[in-house]
């Protein structure tokens, strides 16, 4: 019984991590219609900012607070200067953002000397109930993921700003005619997606340590999650991430991990084959 609770918690917490990482990717993919291959590197940058703040002798939580703003600002600059030129050609956008990601990744690799560096969590240790141990920081991640999900949903579904984002996606020409600056909206949306990735990186770096390929690790999982979830809505990628993250964490409990790793993708491919529109096919929020 204890074992079951521990297993459920571990699976939930890894699922939450994947959701957190995919959230920004999903928002950019759904609301703007482009796949941002540099999303993993925004995660990496969030982690790196946290590390830099920590190694400057400041508290880690300060770095975690700063990370989304720094990465969001960078995302905004990149959107203004580079990414916006790709909107007309989504395939080129993939290659372009991949190149951006590659540049960011190799710069960070140079800055950290290609090493693996630990960053302590602001809340360490574990919560013990009987013989069961639950890592405190993973609990925090689960909570923050839930809050961020709710926050993002409310922002997109309930605010005037969210309405403008959706309008710009649905019908850019009409949105412009109605006085919405779609170019400003795209910039803000991209920055928001980047900021979420920055936050994800900041929160997960104590769990996985800082290394240059941190973001790359989640990139493939993230895209499979978006495919499974369905593009075009906010709920789709989140649901997809939940499914992929949970499967990735749960399968190794019941079968050899090497097989589990492949099986996640096989299942995803079969699913997409039979339901190409993904879990959530509706457009909107």
């Amino acid at each position, binding site marked *: 019984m204890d074992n079951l609770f521990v297993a459920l918690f571990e699976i939930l917490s890894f699922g939450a991590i994947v959701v957190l990482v995919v959230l920004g990717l999903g928002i950019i993919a759904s609301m703007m219609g482009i796949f941002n291959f540099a999303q993993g590197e925004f995660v990496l940058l969030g982690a790196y900012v946290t590390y830099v703040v920590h190694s400057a002798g400041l508290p880690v939580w300060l770095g975690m607070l700063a990370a989304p703003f720094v990465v969001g600002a960078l995302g905004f600059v990149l959107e203004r200067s580079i990414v916006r030129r790709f909107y007309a050609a989504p395939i080129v956008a993939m290659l372009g953002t991949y190149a951006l990601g590659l540049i960011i990744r190799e710069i960070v690799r140079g800055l950290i000397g290609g090493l693996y560096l630990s960053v302590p969590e602001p809340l360490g240790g574990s919560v013990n109930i009987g013989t069961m141990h639950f890592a405190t920081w993973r609990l925090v991640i689960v909570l923050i993921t839930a809050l961020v999900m709710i926050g993002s949903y409310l922002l997109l579904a309930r605010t005037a700003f969210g309405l403008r984002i959706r309008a710009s996606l649905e019908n850019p020409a009409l949105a412009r005619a109605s006085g919405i600056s779609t170019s400003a909206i795209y910039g803000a949306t991209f920055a928001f997606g980047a900021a979420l990735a920055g936050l994800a990186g900041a929160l997960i770096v104590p769990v*996985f340590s800082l290394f240059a390929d941190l973001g790359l690790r989640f990139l493939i999982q993230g895209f499979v999650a978006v495919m499974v979830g369905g593009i075009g809505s906010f709920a789709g990628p989140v649901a997809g991430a939940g499914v992929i993250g949970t499967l990735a964490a749960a399968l*190794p409990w019941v079968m050899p991990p090497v097989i589990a790793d492949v099986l996640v993708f096989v299942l995803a491919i079969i699913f997409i084959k039979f339901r190409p529109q993904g879990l959530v096919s509706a457009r909107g929020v």
Partner: protein
Amino acid sequence: MSNHRNNPSRRRFLSNFAFASTALATGVGSWVIRPDWANAQAGPIKVGVATDLTGPIGYAGNANANVARMVVKEINDAGGLLGRPLELFIEDTASNESVAVGNVRKLIQRDKVDLVLGGITSSMRNAIKDVIVARGRTLYIYPQLYEGKECTPYLFCTGPTPAQQCDEFIPWLIKNGGKRFALPSANYVWPHTLNVYARKVIEANGGEVVFEEYYPLDQIDFSATVNRVVSNKVDVVFNTVIPPGVGPFFKQLYEAGFLKNGGRLACVYYDENTLNINQAAEIEGLASCLDYFKAITPEDPFSAKIQAAYEKQFPGTFLFAAGSAATGAYRGLKLWEAAVKEAGKIDRDAVAAALDRAKIAEGPGGPAEMVPGKRHCKMKMYTAVSKGGKYEIVARSAGMVDPKEC
């Protein structure tokens, strides 16, 4: 943006300039360090180093290249070899086998080096060895600790083998940890082969392997594994999971109370580089067995001298450490130096014959000698335990340990 100001002549200039600079870059190619030498008639002896300067294990490759620079400079400052200077050619294998083969071919065909030292992973060694030894007719020294079973002629291994890393270490673990072992491993050749040997030693010493399990190389969530470790009451986790997985794995073990309940972590590639992957408390008591730790410098003046010289020449993030093959590279070059001196010429067969029984009285961690006919190297081994983020030496081999290969 309009392009009308890009007139044709400027464009042509730019393209010419790009062409010229590309030609310049590819033509000069490798990083050539030319000693300033006047009185060598026969020309310099050429030492080739092919190692991973870039890519995920760039930190190790750069340390290897630094060691080569240090040793070559030291030999040249002392008057060279056979009255000739050494010239060092460094090529990047870029953690990518297909890039590596091309670059190693440059060392062999264009630079015509007399020796190639390098390669860190086993897959890299396997990719470049044929280019060097068979088609290239050149001597090859592989400096990294590895899974053994490399018995190619003209290929000499100067890093520790499974026998050297297990024979004394595992009995120590049984005494200082317990009898129940878990072997969580990354799914590639080194862990598979090392585990076969480790299992034999564990069982011969009265221990038992509770489970042996392999993971994808990029797996970073180990909750299922940690649960198996804890619920099976494992005493010793003999880990061959590699970065990036190893950090989260050790952290999850720590969070599950494995260390608090008296569990022992063991990992035979853990050196000073890998200490930083986790916070000190998460790997408290982690034991490793290698040919060198910085912690032996107080008891071994020669090691202290090398360590100080390295740190003076190359301050920064690329450490002189055993797990990244830096000590094997030092040992390899010095053994080769001794062999060339004995052979009196640099002809491949003569040097290989001398290298087959070469000895050095001093090196990182102590003396070293090749086992005749085996092309592997006897060396002293040390067991160290991580305490508060630093290693403490807890056991030393009585003398040099036999590699038991080939």
